């Protein structure tokens, strides 16, 4: 086994340690839950009030089942625990991390990875970060990377300025839920002109059953700066539903570049309902690289608001829906300035009863000039039971704006599999190779360590699904 890869494969992730939580907000969600979380976290009043307002919005908003999967109705909010933590501050030293948490992350390969190629690491276990460290040279340049809980206390001036500004609480039911009970997630600030050469990495680990993880990530890349952030997510497989509902806000100031890479490998009991959006100012570039493997239902449509002239947004996404899974993913590009460009490339693979849905939103208002969008969505079906849907909503008004959209659906044919088998590959190997071929051009855009891991995850998924 290649130890260079990031250990987030299904087999490795499927384990848990007994819970020993000092702080437990209990089951169910009421204003008292919010007060408990706010008190434990020792938060300022404005945040507690923000949370209460969010809870009211969450309660008032209906489930979006008029367009989304009815499976959402199977989330029983009263059965979920909203805050679980040990009351310990995240440590900068790996040795001080509690033993069972340390064992968990070591099995997932975190310390080695950090030594090898990362500029900073943040590791979250259930509700709070347990470990947070940034390389000294990177920290000395003024780069900040810490958990949102700490950032709120240590950098309130930057935090408050941007928090909730890209994704308002009322954006959707789950952004409201996150705003009410958020905990953990990364806060990153990159000062003007600083180019962080190595990626910053976060790990999100759910250990507890009947639990909801609601991290809140905020990344601000100041003028002319550059940063790449990568996140990996795992959870053990429990019989009951687990909820992951994050909010991720990115701000790319003038000329800044942000790349945000996600490789999720949630177990098949996780509802993964995530809101991710960026604002790109003048000449800024934001690129989401999003790979969704696992989970029961994922709903995620990373977006970029192209706010400044010549801003550029990109979403590259891969979704693999295995038997019994539904990947409902896509992208949003809101053009709000002249000469802004956006690119969406989405590839989905549905296996067995798996279902992949692409939803795209591209909006170019009438008064803008010189805007361009390219959207490509390709679906691959493996066996006749799988299902794929494409809902591209492209509104382009005015003249002098260019849009192109291509979509395709293909199947791996029996002839293709026989041909490969005749050359000596097993059916599963042939499937894996075909699927890897299908996503190959996108996988190559991921950092090396992730592309190797992605290939392995696909191989494992295919082995499990064939004979």
């Amino acid at each position, binding site marked *: 086994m290649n130890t260079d890869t990031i250990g987030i494969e299904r087999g490795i992730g499927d384990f848990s340690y007994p819970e020993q939580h000092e702080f437990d907000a209990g089951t169910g969600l009421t204003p008292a839950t919010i007060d408990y979380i706010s008190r434990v976290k020792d938060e300022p009043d404005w945040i507690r009030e923000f949370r209460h307002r969010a809870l009211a919005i969450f309660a008032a908003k209906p489930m979006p089942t008029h367009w989304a999967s009815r499976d959402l109705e199977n989330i029983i909010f009263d059965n979920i625990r909203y805050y679980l933590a040990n009351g310990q501050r995240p440590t900068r030293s790996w040795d001080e991390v509690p033993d069972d948490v340390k064992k968990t992350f070591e099995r997932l390969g975190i310390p080695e990875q950090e030594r090898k190629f990362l500029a900073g690491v943040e590791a979250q276990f259930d509700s709070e970060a347990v470990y947070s460290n940034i390389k000294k040279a990177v920290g000395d340049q003024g780069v900040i990377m810490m958990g949102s809980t700490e950032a709120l206390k240590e950098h309130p001036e930057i935090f408050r300025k941007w928090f909730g500004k890209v994704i308002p609480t009322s954006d959707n039911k789950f952004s409201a839920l996150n705003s009410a009970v958020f905990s953990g997630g990364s806060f990153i600030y990159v000062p003007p002109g600083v180019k962080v050469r190595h990626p910053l990495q976060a790990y999100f680990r759910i250990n507890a059953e009947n639990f909801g993880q609601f991290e809140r990530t905020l990344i601000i890349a100041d003028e002319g700066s550059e940063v790449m952030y990568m996140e990996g997510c795992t959870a053990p497989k429990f019989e009951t539903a687990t909820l992951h509902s994050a909010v991720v806000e990115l701000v790319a100031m003038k000329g800044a570049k942000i790349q945000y890479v996600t490789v999720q490998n949630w177990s098949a009991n996780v509802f993964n309902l995530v809101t991710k959006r960026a604002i790109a100012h003048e000449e800024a570039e934001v690129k989401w690289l999003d790979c969704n493997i696992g989970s029961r239902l994922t709903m995620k449509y990373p977006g970029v608001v192209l706010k400044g002239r010549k801003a550029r947004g990109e979403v590259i996404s891969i979704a693999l829906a295995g038997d019994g899974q539904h990947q409902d993913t896509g992208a949003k590009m809101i053009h709000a300035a002249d000469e802004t460009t956006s690119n969406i490339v989405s590839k989905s693979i549905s296996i067995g009863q798996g279902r992949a849905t692409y939803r795209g939103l591209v909006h170019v208002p009438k008064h803008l000039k010189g805007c361009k969008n390219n959207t490509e969505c390709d679906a691959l079906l493996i066996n006749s039971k799988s299902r794929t849907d494409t809902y591209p909503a492209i509104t382009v008004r005015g003249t002098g704006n260019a849009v192109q959209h291509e979509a395709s659906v293909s199947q791996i044919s*029996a002839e293709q599999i026989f041909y490969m*088998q*005749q*050359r*000596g*590959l*097993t*059916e599963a*190997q042939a499937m894996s190779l075909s699927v890897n*071929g299908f996503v190959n051009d996108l996988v190559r855009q991921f950092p090396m360590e992730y592309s190797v891991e992605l290939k392995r995850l696909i191989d494992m998924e295919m082995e499990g699904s064939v004979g």
Partner: protein
Amino acid sequence: MSALEIQNLHVTIDSKEIIRGLNLEIPKGEVHAIMGPNGSGKSTLSKAIGGHPDYTVTAGEVLLDGTNILGMEPEERARAGLFLAFQYPVEIPGVSNANFLRAALQARLPEGEELEATEFYAQMYAEMDKLEMSRSFTSRAVNEGFSGGEKKRNEILQMAMLKPTYSILDETDSGLDIDALKIVSAGVNALRGPDRGFLVITHYQRLLDYIVPDVVHVMMDGRIVRTGPKELALELEEKGYDWLKEEVGEPAGV
């Protein structure tokens, strides 16, 4: 027994019998040709031997050096030394030729053993040079956008790299111009030797000018109806198949 032996083979597709009691023996070191009119079951024979799931063997045996391969998966037959050069090679989008060949070779190694990359590339380049294939084909997706001739050369490249004991070439000449035909034939001839057997399926005699067979069989209605020396091919070219049809008569059971 060092041979590919086909004994009393019956094959159906969609419950229609296409191969009806076919017998054939290709000893190691020999090249046999099967000729026959369209619809005589030539391609069905190669697919059935390869283990294509659409073809059902209802009776008979296919022995590869004495082992009956009919119960094996297609990949097990391949690893046992069987190779099919396809009449219509399949495109595999996104998978490079080099990666495909590597995967095929890797699949033949014992678990835990890794294919030696530099050796692999050296060998592949040498074989590609023989087939006058540009190096750019290593990074192109398998057969995708290849011309008919390029696809057939690619089949021969795979055969040269995988070094099968028995190869079945299904209408390898179809879609080839004369220059490509010569290159492909030279590629096959280079692989001929005492340790390999070939079954060349063709509709036309032309290919057999370049790949000269030891034995020629004529197939009609799912059976071998005539076997003879290489001159039999010339006779068929000259007279067509009709005289044989008359001579053999209507097959029984129709």
